[in-house]
């Protein structure tokens, strides 16, 4: 056990890679989710088709398959990425597709009268989104987004299979060099758990803030309707 803990600098480096991947992937996923999610609520059919194609392709694919595709297949047709970039791209595109469904469902869940009021007040489409629909949809999005962020963090473990030295890879390396199988793999699971709980705390805090902003309270335990909204295999929400 002490051998395993002595290599704490390796653990820290690995944790930093995992955290960085989570943040970068999360940022990309958030942008894509908002972009394609709003596209899914458009009045124009072709914009909605864009949303469908993106969502079905990247949600339907396994993240690991996407990563292998970016890492092994695309360089052969001349598209080369660094490993880190390929990983962020695969994670962001995949989680962004789930996020897009969450965004679309949440915007559609805002009462129709709100939309009608913006039309009556002669808001531009941008003002309508920015000032009325998104702020209300945002509170609905947060709990599923929190789930997705933790799924994304767990998803980063796949990068260990293409050679990035994240927490998982570090545990494998340390297991190889010290031979302490039980300790190495126990420590890595505990570290992931700690990271997940920290993310959880952050998400709870954000939820409370948004709820207070809108003056409403969401149920403490998710109901059946929302539980699958951010789930890895979730169907179409809303």
């Amino acid at each position, binding site marked *: 056990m002490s051998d395993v803990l002595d290599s704490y600098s390796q653990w820290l480096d690995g944790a930093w890679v995992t955290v960085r991947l989570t943040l970068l992937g999360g940022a990309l996923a958030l942008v894509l989710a908002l972009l394609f999610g709003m596209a899914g609520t458009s009045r124009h059919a072709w914009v909605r088709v864009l949303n469908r194609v993106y969502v079905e392709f990247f949600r339907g*694919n396994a993240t*690991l398959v996407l990563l292998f595709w970016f890492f092994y297949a*695309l360089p052969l*047709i001349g598209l080369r990425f660094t490993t880190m970039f390929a990983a962020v791209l695969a994670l962001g595109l995949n989680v962004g597709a789930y996020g897009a469904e969450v965004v679309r469902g949440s915007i559609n869940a805002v009462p129709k009268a709100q939309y009608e009021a913006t039309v009556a007040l002669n808001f531009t489409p941008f003002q309508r989104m920015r000032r009325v629909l998104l702020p209300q949809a945002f509170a609905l999005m947060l709990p599923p987004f929190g789930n997705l962020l933790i799924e994304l963090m*767990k998803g980063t*473990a796949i990068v260990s299979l293409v050679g990035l030295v994240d927490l998982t890879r570090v545990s494998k390396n340390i297991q190889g060099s010290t031979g302490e199988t039980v300790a190495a*793999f126990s420590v890595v699971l505990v570290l992931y758990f700690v990271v997940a709980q920290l993310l959880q705390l952050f998400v709870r805090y954000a939820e409370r803030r948004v709820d207070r902003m809108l003056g409403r309270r969401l149920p403490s335990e998710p109901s059946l309707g929302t*539980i699958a909204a951010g789930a890895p295999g979730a169907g179409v929400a809303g």
Partner: protein
Amino acid sequence: MSWDWQYSGEILPDLLRGLRYTVIATLAGYVIAIVLGLVWTLLRRTPSRVFNQVIRWVTEFIRSTPLIPQLYFVFFVLPAWGITIGSLTAGIITLGIHYSTYTAEVYRAGIADVPKGQWEACTALNLPRSRVWLDVILPQAIRRVIPTLGNYLIAMFKDSPMLLAINVAELLFSAYKVGSQSLQFLEPITMVGLLFVVVSVISSILVRRLERRYATT
């Protein structure tokens, strides 16, 4: 470099052989997940609060740690304790246990969704506990969660490539292997990707159908 159709045809049998392992692992894991998930949920409802909290944190721990280190744990640690298992078995067990913590949450929400009047009626009729659960609550709860459980089957299918971390010869692993023999990765991995999209799209249509069929409102 462009797409090589002849090569694609040649590697197809290899990929299908890999697909067989993917399907076996997914289905066997799913059976574990839906049974064990219900067990977790019921264990969280015992009279002992300490025990319930322990179960809650155990499932939380399994749910919030990634599958790949869990695979390593099961595959490398169990032999250290004297239990030797094959990589496919280890993969099935890990996948099943990992997703059982998700299905547990689904069952919990399904049970909470059963109207309170049903519980009250059971008390009024003085039904024994076993009949309350088996004949009143669970049939209604499970009906509600069937579509959501269907989603997790798709999710498990999409997570099954991770089994290649412990050298299970599943779909992506076989694609990688044929690719590394010929150094042509484009065709096998693209084919695997398309296969995943096709299966996911079809199965999500099926799940939507389930949702309509079992709609309670």
